[in-house]
């Protein structure tokens, strides 16, 4: 069990949403990303943890690569079911 800052990880095969980025003002198809947080189980040097105590979901701009809108778990799930 360990603590680490993994950063933003992309949810693969999720639906993309076209919106204007709040940071760079570019209109693009934003992707669903998540940030694992809390305590992790897995290999500390691996890209992803096997298990995390909580996850936060965001929409990430593909131009500036910065998270834009915070999503709830339900919203994120609806995007995952493409």
């Amino acid at each position, binding site marked *: 069990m360990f603590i680490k*800052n993994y950063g933003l990880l992309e949810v693969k095969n999720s639906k993309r949403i076209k919106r204007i980025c709040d940071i*760079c003002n570019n209109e693009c198809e934003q992707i669903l990303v998540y940030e694992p947080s809390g305590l992790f189980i897995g290999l500390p040097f691996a890209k992803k943890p096997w298990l995390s105590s909580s996850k936060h979901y965001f929409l990430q701009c593909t*131009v*500036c*690569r910065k998270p834009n809108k915070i999503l709830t778990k339900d919203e994120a799930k609806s995007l995952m079911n493409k």
Partner: protein
Amino acid sequence: MIIFGWGKNSKEIGKGLIQECPNCKNVRQWIIVETSKKVSLYFVPVAKWNKEYFCICPVCNNGIKLDSLDDAHKIMEAAIEQEAALKKQYSENECNSSYHQASAPIENETVSKGKIVIESGMWECKDCHIKMVEEGDYCSKCRGHKQNVAVRGEKMEGINAMDEKILKVFKELTYLSEDFYSDMMKIYPSMKKVDAQKAKYCPMMVFYLAFFDVIRSDEVPQEKVEEISGLICALLARLNPQFIELIDDCQDFVNKLIQNYMKKEKKEPETVFFAYSYGNWIFHKIFSKIPSEKGEDIQALKFGDYILKKVMTYWSEQKKSLLPF
């Protein structure tokens, strides 16, 4: 129990030049950052290595890797010079704005549609009738007559004066693009290290700067902006027959621009914004479709400069009779 950490550390060490980001298209003052790898023990940093320097856009963090700290210092020095030049330019503009005050202290004579000189050093706003002493183009209270205020240091004399003004802006833009072109050529090798694909946006940057200056300039009325966009599109179509094929996605918009230019319809305020953003979009569409192979980036860069020069020449020689449609 041992607590240790590792990761990357980055800190801002200075300010860079004000320029447009090729990735996010925002014009901002870039920043110079130093990145390094670190290891900490019990939250105390114990080792730092692999220092690298980058000049990055503060919005999207996209940027150029610098070879050494000396390069970073050079950019910082250039930024200080640029800031000084901008301050000087700003102060000169402030002096120019008091042109009428200094050279034409005539009582009760209208020098512009927006402001009236009532006595030496005093102004009266035509809209709200507030008397004011301060310099500048706008009334300090209403600020609502941008279009009616005289061009700095010149009298506004209808559309012909405005045509001349636009021509002047175009001429300035041509020089700007030449400087920009030479600067881009200097930084092109270092750009290539980061992302060769980005280099194809260079002509778009030239146009973006052109549009940016024209549109942001208070000296050119907003209704002229769409007209200029239409003019440039029409010229591009004339100069390069493949242009229309390249922009098949935005054909309707180009047609609309040209029609508006021809008919001189009364424009809605939103269309100015659309002309601005679609202008960028059109060039993005064109140059994203041109394959970026070895040597073609430079050709595309030259093409942007070439088009801008042509626009200026056509505008000065033939003015409004240049449309091929």
